[in-house]
């Protein structure tokens, strides 16, 4: 089974190809404001170098936010369009859950930062216990005081195989219902 992985919620465009859950090839491009230029060409390259045709993709996994609004919209639009047109299975994971898989610390706060503040998820015994939320930097400092024994995870690595395993037993979603997770209110969204 061929799985295509897409992540665009931060400054990187990450595309991975897994064969039966094992990472075959992945490419990461640091492209801050240029995800639109990079995503589809990167998918094309990964497939070419893996000798896989797009129609041979059986499953899509996309990180659907929160994070960069524009980045998330690009990744989700491409992923749901691929799943819809290829009739492939599609699964989503939030950026916070994806980053939580980087370590084995059981009590932790996983964050995705932007200039003014942080999206965060609180994990107890490796389970997310809150609804992912956003606080500005001062409010986040206050929050930390309530969780003195929790470790803030700053590691931004995306481990594609761990994400695959995390989602392995989850059902696919109807591509029409795959949507960005924004959390913050979007100004001037159209």
């Amino acid at each position, binding site marked *: 089974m061929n799985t295509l992985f897409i992540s665009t919620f931060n400054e990187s465009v990450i595309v991975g190809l897994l064969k039966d859950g094992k990472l075959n090839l992945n490419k990461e491009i640091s492209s801050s404001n240029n995800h639109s230029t990079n995503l589809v060409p990167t998918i094309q390259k990964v497939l070419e170098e893996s000798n896989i045709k797009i129609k041979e993709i059986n499953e899509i996994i996309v990180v659907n936010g929160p994070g960069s609004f524009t980045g998330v919209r690009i990744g989700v639009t491409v992923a749901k*369009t691929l799943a819809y047109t290829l009739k492939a299975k599609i699964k989503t994971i939030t950026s916070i859950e994806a980053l939580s898989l980087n370590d084995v610390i059981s009590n932790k706060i996983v964050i995705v930062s932007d200039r003014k503040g942080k999206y965060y998820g609180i994990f107890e015994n490796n389970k997310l216990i809150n609804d992912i939320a956003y606080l500005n930097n001062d409010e986040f400092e206050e929050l930390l005081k309530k969780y003195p024994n929790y470790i803030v995870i700053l590691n931004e690595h995306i481990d594609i195989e761990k994400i695959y395993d995390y989602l392995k037993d989850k059902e696919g979603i109807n591509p029409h219902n795959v949507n960005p997770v924004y959390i913050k209110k979007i100004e001037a969204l159209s």
Partner: protein
Amino acid sequence: MHCENITLVMEDLFSKTDLTMDNIDAIAVTYAPGLLGSLLIGVEFAKTLSFVYNKPLIKVNHLAGHIYANNLEEKLEYPLLALVVSGGHTELILMEDDYKFNVLGATLDDAIGEVYDKVAKVLNLPYPGGPNIEKYAEQGKPNYELPRSVLNKELNFSFSGLKSAVINLVHNERQRGSEINKYDLAASFQEVAIEQLIRKTKEAILKTGSKRLIIAGGVSANKYLRKEMEKLANEYNVNLSIPKMRYCTDNATMIAAAAYPLYLKKEFATYDLNPISTDKLFTIQ
């Protein structure tokens, strides 16, 4: 909301036609101008379709779509004169060939659609303002005296004097406590505004000797404009094209129409295509 709806729109489209993707030769997409967040969804969607179905990708300027909406009924023949009238545009253009735009004249201040909206606002007409001016005008008489722009002999337009006159008139009447007849004022405004379009278009016909005239942009849906343009075309024996009503306002069919000459020339876009919020189809000196 575009990201939420984009695949649903495709499903809806194909459920209403016998066509399948096998019948499609190319994927056309608006890449400019507009809101980046909106353009982006269309561009990424189009790239993905192009990639999955192995069909060429064609990038289209939104305004070219309005112009080529005239190519849906009858093939455009050049040279032709194009009057572009919308919320952001008022231009007279000489087209010698596909995608060759020679701007003969443009508005020096507000666009015609913009003035319609501003006048609707000052008259407190319900949304959508511009089209409602037309409805009110149909029931009124042009009894109010409003200034006609008597610019130079060039083909430029100006609507700010007319706009200010309407605003001042409404304010003065309100201060005096007398009632404005919205119907008559809408009719008076529309008569003067459209007369300027007709007059300048007539000058352009005489100057260029063009035998073909097309009207493009949202304001081309205005019935009074359509009627007056037909009179003008008859008088000067000019072949007139105005899109059907449903192709006057924004639509996807016109984008496909504008992509067709690019398809024939094999002017295809690559997957690093980025939307541009301000890209212009032509420059105005």
